[in-house]
């Protein structure tokens, strides 16, 4: 059955000249020649996972392939009994004659771009990525290719990130002010990636840093991978002898914090996300908002696409239409790639899912 499907796919590829290697099937991005999927959303035998966020890494695949850095956080999501093969960045293997290698995507710890090559043709799936530096993961590497699959979560020219340094300057200033007033500072962001990045940017000279319990497994995985953090306390360690009015609490989502809510002193809270760039969205959130994203902004997206030298670009996840249209106007062969999350009329709900 599968063979027949593959055959017809190959034919369609030839006739439409979509791509020599990749197709989009019901279950996800599929490489027929190598018989594997990348970040599939349906159950498959062989899945290459770009990174361990829930919309890319799903449980129930027979075999997984990911980067060494990302192995532990992936297993935390899909279960430690899963069959996972891990590759070093740049290390190549052959899958049915297709050369497959993983390269840093700079999104979160262990996030990878998947490079596949057959008969001189190179195609790259970026997963989610950012090109700005991030102390908690390896930096994005541009790879020359014929086809580049890019994300477009923040694919509008209004999204241009301030430097990480200036964001953390503001964060630490705000924390010091709260400390002077004896108020607890509470910061939240997505529990894998964002929270660790926030943690790494805090200045421990201001006061104690307390980490919500739900973040500990992921954060430990980061430490095991060699990421350096300022010293932090668990909620239990901070129960006695710590002035919560001077502290900053790092937490994942509103669901956490059940065991420490009553310790907070007049808390002042902030949420970290790229979506906090627009005033409309900042107003909709009850807390203060800091603009900190693990996705590419508009200028970096354009330069990343350019650096690949790819003539064909598939745009997925986010503002697919504006990005594909703009790239086409620049003379590239750009297409929107459908995913189960893409529904054009509801960007807000979709965005919530994307970052939370």
């Amino acid at each position, binding site marked *: 059955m599968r063979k027949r499907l593959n055959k017809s796919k190959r034919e369609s590829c030839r006739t439409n000249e979509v791509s020599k290697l990749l197709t989009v099937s019901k279950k996800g991005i599929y490489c027929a020649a190598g018989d594997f999927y990348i970040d599939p959303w349906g159950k498959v035998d062989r899945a290459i996972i770009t990174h361990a966020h829930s919309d890319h890494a799903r449980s129930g695949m027979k075999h997984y392939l990911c980067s060494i850095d990302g192995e532990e956080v992936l297993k935390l999501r899909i279960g430690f009994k899963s069959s996972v093969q891990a590759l070093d960045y740049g290390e190549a293997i052959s899958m049915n004659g297709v050369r497959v290698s993983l390269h840093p995507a700079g999104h979160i710890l262990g996030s990878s771009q998947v490079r596949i090559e057959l008969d001189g043709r190179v195609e790259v799936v970026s997963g989610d990525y950012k090109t700005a530096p991030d102390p908690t993961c390896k930096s994005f590497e541009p790879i020359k290719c014929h086809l580049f699959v890019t994300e477009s979560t923040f694919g509008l020219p209004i999204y*241009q990130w301030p430097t990480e340094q200036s964001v953390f300057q503001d964060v630490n200033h705000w924390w010091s002010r709260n400390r002077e007033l004896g108020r607890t500072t509470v910061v939240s962001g997505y529990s894998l990636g964002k929270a660790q990045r926030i943690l790494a940017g805090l200045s421990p000279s201001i006061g104690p840093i307390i980490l919500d319990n739900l973040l500990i497994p992921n954060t430990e995985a980061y430490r095991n991978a060699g990421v350096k953090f300022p010293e932090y306390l668990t909620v239990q360690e901070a129960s006695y002898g710590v002035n919560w009015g001077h502290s900053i609490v790092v937490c994942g989502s509103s669901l956490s914090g059940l065991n420490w809510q009553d310790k907070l002193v007049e808390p002042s809270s902030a949420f970290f996300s790229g979506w906090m760039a627009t005033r409309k969205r900042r107003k909709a959130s009850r807390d203060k908002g800091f603009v900190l994203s693990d996705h590419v902004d508009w200028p970096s997206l354009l330069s990343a696409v350019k650096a690949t030298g790819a003539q064909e670009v598939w745009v997925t996840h986010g503002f697919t239409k504006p990005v594909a249209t703009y790239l086409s106007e620049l003379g590239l062969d750009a297409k929107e790639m459908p995913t189960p999350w893409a529904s054009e009329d509801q960007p807000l709900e979709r965005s919530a899912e994307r970052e939370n």
Partner: protein
Amino acid sequence: MKLFCRLWRALDETEDPTTKVRALVEYFSEASDEDCAWAVALIKGKAVRRATSAQTLLDWARHASNLPKWLVDESVNEVGDLSETAAMILPASKGNLSKSQPWHWWCEMATNRFADLGSEEQAATVLKAWQPLETPERIILNKLLTGSLRVSCSLKEVEIALWMITGIDQSDLAHRLSKSWSPTATSYQELISPDPFQGSISRPYPLRQLDEASTAIENIDPEHWRIDWLWTGQRVQIVSRKGVYFLWSLTNDLLNERFPDLLERFRDLPDGVVLEGFLVSLENHEPSGTVNLRKRLGRLIPSAKAISESPVGFMTLDVLEWDGVDLRDRPLCERLLRAGELAVGDIYRPVMVPWTDSKGIPNVLSLARSIHADGILLRRKDGLYESLDQDWIGLLNQPVQIHAVLMYVQMSNINDPRSVTEYTLGVWNEGVLVTIGKFLGNLPSHQQRAIAEFARANTLERFGPVRTVRQEIVFRIEFDAVEVSTRHKAGLLLRGGRILSWEMDKRPAEASKLSALKSFIP
């Protein structure tokens, strides 16, 4: 500019007055006098007119960033604001911020000179200004240039912040801030320099709390006690000293600008007089509820039409100062003796309510609603102004309870039961429900959640955040008074309306009728 930008963001991000005051204190302590003066001008809200349109700024930004128009339109959709979009699509900042002009220079520019520049020069000025700025600062500049820079805090919060920094009395600061303001370093220095003489002229007295007392009323008699009406309106005091007049609200907000017509009358007051009383709407020289008063209070500077259509008056309750002498330590009868000497139109002498014995008090109270009073005040004739609690007995009208049906639900976020929720309720009039007003949904949280659930499942129509829901839920509500109002569909306004409970066993048909409500109109 960085400092002002931080202030604007901080004020924009919170509704909490304490946080706002803290942000103001930080700004006033760090910014230059000129910048502070402009901040005050912007908060007062009359400073800046529109120097250019947001669409023009957006066009300049589009050319500067070399983007196609369709993509900019797409971005506007996402941001929801033209001048913010213009700031956000520009290429990243470059150049040295310290070389750019200070904030007050830009305020000056936007108010005075910018409109006179030629359009090419305007574009060049703005493009050059944008370059070294970060996005948040560009947003502020754009809002300033388009005259849409709203600083979200009140003058009251400025007063508190300046009081915390300088120690100058808040009422004194309020007076200084109420004058016309020119945004210069000199006016800011004047504002924050101690000047005891100025303070003593305007200073109001702290007004006595008017809580509803629980003291028994059986043993009081007309010989030792007097009764006054608690008129429906605002409790205020008039200060007349050295030819200058002040109208202070209970919370020490200066109301002078809102009521120039009443202020005109003050000129006939003797010098050195402070009166306490009620600011009321007048109709045929009689107090008439709050509808007209609301119109006046809502307007910073009233039009001639508003003044002639909504006259106001002052019903004296007490005399706190006479001939420059503080009377608060004299007995009530002596204080009110002075009021007898008042003969000023629209400033009414205290009206003593006739009564015979304590048994008659409930009867007197029952009349209050019909003459636009909220209740009555019983005071001992020999009591001092700041005397014992038992010397003042306030009795308020009994609130009225009715049943009403839920018609519309508005919540800022329907998925978040903590979000502010407003319910529009209706009563029956000739077989259909007519709305009687919006009520804050401060029900127990599990009920609020249940109603959000109901609203989601039973929405008939949506207008933005407002949902028309199936008419099934009945609330018991309570209010203090009913007034005629042309603003509402039912033709009346419920004052002090609040939801008491969700009546799950009542059917919508059992809700009250409009005619029943109308019977409470005085």
